[in-house]
């Protein structure tokens, strides 16, 4: 048995019985990481930071919040006006949700661009999509808690989506509500679930990290690490890079919290919920807008709901939809163009989700929805048959240090 690497006798004693220090040393310190990661690889740790920040601010907010239809709105206003630093904690939590989605969406598009979902990282990707789904459920229920007009009507519209299910739809909606409309029972259960789901997310994040550390990070070239010459230890190289990224992220985050905290919110949510009056224009939070646009693009209730959930479902099976063995878009000249079209398509869907469902907006939503599904269901499986990929480098080190004339010969082997 090798000698302990720890000098401190207390650490040594504990580590012999409970090897947590060895574990951390192995996974956070020595952990070999591809040396060519760019700044898009910062967003995983940023998402982790956002999750912790949301849990910490959320726990202290719950100490001052009352989950009752008669008191919820006032208790949130009390947090804003009377509770010490309450305005700061709530604005961090409110904007934290938006920033969490921003970093997660960038993280997802990073995965799409560099093919991070491909073998052997399929389960890593699927766990990530599961985290996205849990985040959406948590964010939706959190938005209901202040009990403003958008809270109430958002909850009404989203829970009514389930009424589209044939036969049992209405029963499911009544079960979700605990009554015949969104009411006190609904608010209470949403508070309970909004509190607990983030800890479920933590559990799935741990599995996400276990799956990540099985084969290590993908990298911008998308070829496998060939040996220690292709990697650097996680610490200090990527701990420092992640901390630098975090400081940049916090600059933007602080700017939002202190200078435009309500920019990503909706003014109608500062009006207390009124079950008798629907606001003229209901919009969900910005991070749901692309999915909302898909829902409204389909002129059929059940169809709209199926397509909306289908937009997430295709992500689960993406590792098998994409038939190309080349991971990184750098070597896929045609896919690279379509990647940017998909990104623009999603931004367009987000814009259309915020617009009224009439006239040109409906037509554009249908085109954008059609493209979204075309991209996943037709382009991903078929493109590899017509696309001629560029030769891959021999190794991660080769493009940096130069590989000479042998490069292309190895590249041919690489493709097989």
């Amino acid at each position, binding site marked *: 048995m090798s000698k302990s690497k720890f000098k401190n006798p207390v650490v040594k004693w504990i580590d012999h019985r409970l090897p947590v220090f060895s574990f951390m040393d192995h996974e956070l310190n020595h952990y070999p990481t591809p040396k060519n990661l760019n700044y898009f690889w910062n967003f995983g740790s940023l998402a982790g930071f956002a999750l912790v920040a949301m849990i910490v601010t959320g726990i202290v907010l719950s100490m001052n919040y009352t989950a009752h239809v008669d008191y919820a709105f006032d208790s949130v206003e009390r947090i804003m006006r009377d509770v010490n630093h309450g305005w700061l904690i709530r604005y961090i939590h409110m904007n934290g949700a938006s920033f969490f989605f921003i970093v997660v969406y960038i993280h997802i598009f990073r995965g799409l661009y560099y093919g991070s979902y491909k073998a052997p990282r399929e389960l890593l990707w699927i766990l990530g999509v599961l985290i996205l789904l849990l985040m959406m459920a948590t964010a939706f229920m959190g938005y209901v808690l202040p009990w403003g007009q958008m809270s109430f*009507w958002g909850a*009404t*519209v989203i*829970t*009514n*989506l389930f*009424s*589209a299910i044939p036969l049992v739809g209405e029963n499911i909606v*009544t*079960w*979700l*509500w*605990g*009554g*015949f*409309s969104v*009411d006190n*029972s609904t608010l209470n*259960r949403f508070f309970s679930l909004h509190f607990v789901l983030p800890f479920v997310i933590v559990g799935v994040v741990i599995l996400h990290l276990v799956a990540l550390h099985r084969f290590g990070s993908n990298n911008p070239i998308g070829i496998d690490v060939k040996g220690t010459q292709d990697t650097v230890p996680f610490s200090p190289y990527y701990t420092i890079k992640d901390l630098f990224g975090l400081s940049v992220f916090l600059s933007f985050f602080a700017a939002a919290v202190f200078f435009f905290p309500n920019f990503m919110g909706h003014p109608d949510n500062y009006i207390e919920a009124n*079950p*008798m*009056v*629907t606001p*003229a*224009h*209901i919009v969900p939070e910005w991070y749901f807008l692309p999915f909302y646009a898909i829902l*409204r693009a389909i*002129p*059929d*209730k*059940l169809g*709209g709901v199926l397509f909306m959930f289908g937009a997430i479902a295709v992500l689960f099976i993406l590792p098998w939809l994409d038939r190309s063995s080349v991971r990184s878009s750098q070597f896929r000249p045609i896919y690279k163009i379509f990647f940017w079209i998909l990104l623009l398509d999603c931004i367009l869907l987000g814009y259309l989700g915020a617009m009224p*469902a*009439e006239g040109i907006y409906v037509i554009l939503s249908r085109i954008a929805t059609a493209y979204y599904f075309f991209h996943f269901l037709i382009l991903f499986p078929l493109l590899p048959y017509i696309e001629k990929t560029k030769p891959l480098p021999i190794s991660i080190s080769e493009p940096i240090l130069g590989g000479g004339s042998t490069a292309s010969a190895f590249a041919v082997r690489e493709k097989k």
Partner: protein
Amino acid sequence: MPTYSKSKNNKDGKRDFLIISTYAMAGIGAASVAWPLIDQMNPAADTLALASTEVDLSSLEEGQAITVTWRGKPVFVRHRTPEEIKLAKEVSLDEMRHPETDEERVPNEKFIVLVGVCTHLGCVPLGQKSGDVKGQYGGWFCPCHGSHYDHSGRIRKGPAPTNLEVPSYKFLSDNIIKIG
């Protein structure tokens, strides 16, 4: 699978039986514990027992409408004009998504009573106040996703799948209805 399960030995047959019945009992046990935990989310007894609502229609003039609350939902009552009644009765059912005659939906043709919740995704349609947009068919219009309802509360255009729901109600006298 363990090899003994394939054996024809009598003792092993007994073992299979014990394993299957253990799993079955555990499954039934788990389901019976889970059910109360799931069913507690359904409406509680006090929610189900919510009092019915009585509405006096004597002050409701022709063309006017009122909204009352029943089970936490808005209920629309509109006193229809003769032209509106005529339009609602004469229209052909062929052009409807959810064909229902006006007679089926409105026992007393003057007063129409509807649950004021759009059957698409649950918004409250406009059309109760005099200045409201009433949609292309003059009844109600849901601003959320653009559903148009006619003078009988029937869906005529837009994403809603069915007509506005008619709550169970009865006339206690000529001018008083009891909803629920």
